[in-house]
């Protein structure tokens, strides 16, 4: 009990005595824990909007698809009697309590102004359906020559109620805009096989170079949208090259049975090629969540990068604090403190800061998550509350503690093992001698000579600086690779917006800002630690004739030289991170051009130098006599 009181008192007093260092530590760890909390808090946030949309649209439990790209080679399409027979078998199956359809689905090219895009046009009755009645959010439901567009798709097109659009050359008016729970919203409609995509490109079309007749606009199922129109209008759009498919919406007595029902009534039982594919509502909910899942895919590696930078920050800051603690260690030992007590005192402070940072990160993540968890226009209702479970809290706190422990364990043990006398004398850890670097530096201009010798004095700090720049460049290169890959994939089909890419870009911006903020903090703290550590030798060099500019140049060189390999190493690491995090594989990844990579690396190095010059110049302004008198 007494020991706890002592540790608490010492930690409290030290925090009050050195608040600036504590605040910097807190900022570094908080940045990492906030990004991690954000990534973890996104779990399941789209569940609630999907359920609300299902309720509002009387969403189906299972969607049966007849024809389309998943059902086999294109041909004239499934025969109506066959579809009716198979639909009858499904609607009469045990557990089915209601149905809608089968509805005809035409594959068509929608033309709005100069934009042409592939669309899945579903023929519906003008009256409301008992199962899957899309909720109209603007305008009205289908009517002859009146088309209703899925809301995310309409947003991407910039289409509004009353606009005139063409479908396979026929003119329609946008009668309304609606949301549905029966299919994934744009652009995820055909995102993965086995989804609710039943339309396809025309059979005459080369999938790699398919263009719209007339406009020459490229077509791809990757950007297919959902539309509804009357059954006669849908049938009128069909042709031999683009035959009709069919959709049947099923309601089960127990929605939880949907996956089992879909598995039990798969293609084979439905009658072979050209026949049905069953999609349970849980799969559609999953596809609906792709928007947010992509965010997580971006945020999670981003959180790890931020964590690595935080470790570097804490190591530099913590190392500086440990040097300050030298005299305290001596006093503690002189009055009978055991090495263990000393180590506990030295580490408790950083661990306390880490826990506090974890708490702030959790709250910040929980509060800011709703800003980035909008489920998108494809669903109705607000996002669910971000999930902060005990497991999430434990994970964030664990990461914060690991960051603090990794960075302070070695200095704490070293402090505990320091001899009492040298600790009482406040003897700083003697700098290391690197014979080769000292010898090489003799041939360099004065700023480089002094800079290289500063690196030789504290190689671990130089290594941390290099690692920090490597992590920052890794993040920047990963972001550039994302843009290059996205641009490459969507080349020629990017005339309409892609909400997934837009959301990814927003998340990347969040990550980039967090990484840059931490990198700036690192550059300044590392430079300042170097300035403080080298105060004596810098003052001595000035007494021996070095100018302030040479000293500033030396400090800058001491940061810049390790930063160069760090920045270069960041390039392959960034590419590797993108390949690993995106799951795109190396073939699916587009390497950013040299015109982007070289300026990114150079800009990082210039930024490091610029950030270093400020503390270096401030340090060089200290009067030589003051420093030498203090060091005496």
């Amino acid at each position: 009990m007494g020991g706890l009181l002592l540790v608490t008192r010492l930690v409290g007093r030290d925090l009050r005595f050195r608040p600036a260092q504590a605040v910097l530590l807190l900022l570094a760890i908080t940045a990492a824990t906030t990004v991690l909390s954000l990534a973890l808090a996104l779990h399941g946030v789209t569940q609630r909007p999907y359920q609300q949309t299902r309720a509002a649209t009387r969403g189906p439990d299972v969607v049966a698809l007849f024809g389309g790209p998943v059902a086999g080679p294109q041909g004239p399409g499934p025969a109506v009697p066959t579809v009716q027979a198979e639909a009858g078998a499904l609607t009469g199956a045990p557990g089915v309590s209601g149905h809608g359809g089968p509805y005809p689905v035409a594959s068509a090219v929608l033309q709005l102004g100069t934009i042409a895009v592939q669309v899945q046009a579903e023929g519906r009755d003008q009256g409301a359906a008992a199962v899957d009645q899309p909720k109209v959010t603007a305008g009205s439901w289908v009517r002859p020559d009146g088309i209703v567009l899925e809301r995310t798709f309409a947003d991407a097109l910039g289409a509004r109620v009353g606009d005139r659009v063409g479908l396979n050359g026929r003119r329609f008016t946008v009668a309304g805009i609606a949301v549905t729970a029966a299919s994934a919203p744009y652009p995820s409609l055909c995102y993965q096989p086995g989804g609710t995509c039943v339309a396809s490109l025309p059979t005459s079309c080369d999938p790699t170079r398919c263009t719209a007749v007339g406009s020459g606009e490229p077509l791809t199922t990757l950007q297919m949208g959902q539309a509804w129109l009357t059954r006669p209008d849908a049938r009128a759009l069909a042709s031999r090259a683009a035959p009709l498919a069919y959709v049947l919406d099923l309601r089960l007595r127990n929605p939880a049975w949907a996956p089992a029902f879909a598995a039990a009534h798969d293609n084979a039982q439905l009658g072979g090629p050209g026949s049905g594919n069953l999609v349970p509502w849980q799969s559609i909910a999953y596809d609906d969540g792709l928007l947010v899942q992509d965010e997580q895919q971006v945020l999670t590696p981003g959180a790890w990068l931020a964590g690595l930078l935080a470790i570097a920050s804490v190591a530099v800051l913590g190392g500086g604090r440990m040097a300050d603690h030298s005299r305290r260690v001596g006093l503690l030992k002189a009055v009978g403190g055991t090495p263990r007590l000393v180590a506990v005192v030295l580490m408790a402070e950083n661990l306390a800061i880490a826990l506090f940072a974890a708490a702030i990160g959790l709250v910040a993540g929980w509060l800011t998550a709703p800003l980035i968890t909008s489920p998108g226009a494809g669903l109705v209702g607000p996002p669910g509350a971000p999930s902060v479970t005990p497991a999430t809290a434990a994970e964030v706190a664990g990461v914060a503690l690991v960051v603090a422990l990794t960075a302070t364990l070695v200095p704490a043990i070293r402090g505990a093992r320091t001899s009492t006398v040298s600790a009482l004398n406040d003897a700083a850890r003697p700098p290391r001698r690197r014979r080769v670097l000292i010898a090489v530096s003799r041939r360099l201009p004065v700023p480089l000579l002094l800079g290289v010798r500063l690196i030789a004095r504290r190689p671990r700090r130089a290594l941390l600086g290099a690692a920090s720049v490597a992590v920052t460049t890794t993040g920047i290169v990963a972001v550039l690779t994302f843009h290059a890959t996205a641009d490459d994939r969507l080349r020629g089909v990017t005339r309409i917006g892609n909400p997934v890419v837009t959301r990814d870009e927003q998340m990347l911006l969040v990550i980039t800002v967090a990484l840059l903020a931490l990198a700036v903090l690192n550059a300044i703290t590392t430079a300042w630690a170097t300035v403080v550590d080298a105060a004596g030798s810098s003052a001595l060099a000035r007494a021996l004739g070095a100018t302030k500019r040479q000293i500033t140049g030396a400090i800058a060189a001491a940061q810049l030289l390790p930063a160069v390999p760090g920045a270069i190493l960041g390039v392959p690491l960034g590419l590797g991170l993108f390949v690993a995090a995106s799951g795109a594989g190396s073939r699916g990844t587009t390497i950013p051009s040299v015109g982007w990579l070289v300026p990114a690396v150079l800009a990082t190095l210039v930024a490091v130098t610029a950030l270093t010059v400020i503390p270096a110049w401030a340090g060089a302004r200290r009067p030589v006599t003051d420093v030498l008198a203090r060091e005496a």
Partner: protein
Amino acid sequence: MTAGTQSMVRARGLRKEYGSQATLVRAVDGVDLDVAPGETLAVMGPSGCGKSTLLHLLGGLDRASAGELWLAGRRIDTMSERGMAALRRDAVGFVFQAFHLMDELTAAENVELPVLLAGRSPRVARRRAGELLERVGLADRARHLPSQLSGGQRQRVAIARALANRPMVVLADEPTGNLDSEATLDVLRLFESLHEAGQTLVIVTHDSRIAATADRLISMRDGAFIDETRLTGGTSGRLGALLDLDG
């Protein structure tokens, strides 16, 4: 004839103030000083009397609040920061009480440092360091780190470093303050040889035995000169015996 042409160091009305109004402290208060070429001058006084501050002003480590200062006929108190740095590098050698050697550099590398800072080649720097370490009797300790040297040896390395760029004047601030009697004698012998070689020396000390070795002794109190004595004994003769340091 311009001011200061006959003196290696010349100061007129030199003043250094800290603080303002109620907290104003005059560390150096209107000092006039002339040090002739080849002269050894000792400055004595109690702690805090301003003698170290005076030394810092003379060496361009600090700037005076008022007054004029010449070194070898060149006005130095109006020099830019860069000019002051060049002055410290080429014209002045410092010897500190606390040695101020770089812990991670060997004795030779410490002595080389000012030569390298002056932009000379590594070979020239190495040769000059060898000569100087030979001169201070530490040729066999050239590859030793400061932590492997005794206090007296460290100060001898520091003196060698102060001489590296053949300065016009060597300024020594309590050079024997951290040394035992034997090491003090070594350092004094070294200063004696410098004096004989015509080196201008200004030594700040509060040890009267050290002061007795100089050509001239100035006493300071409260930032001002209160007494000046020309010493007849100087640094010639049987120094150790005179100072009773031989043991």
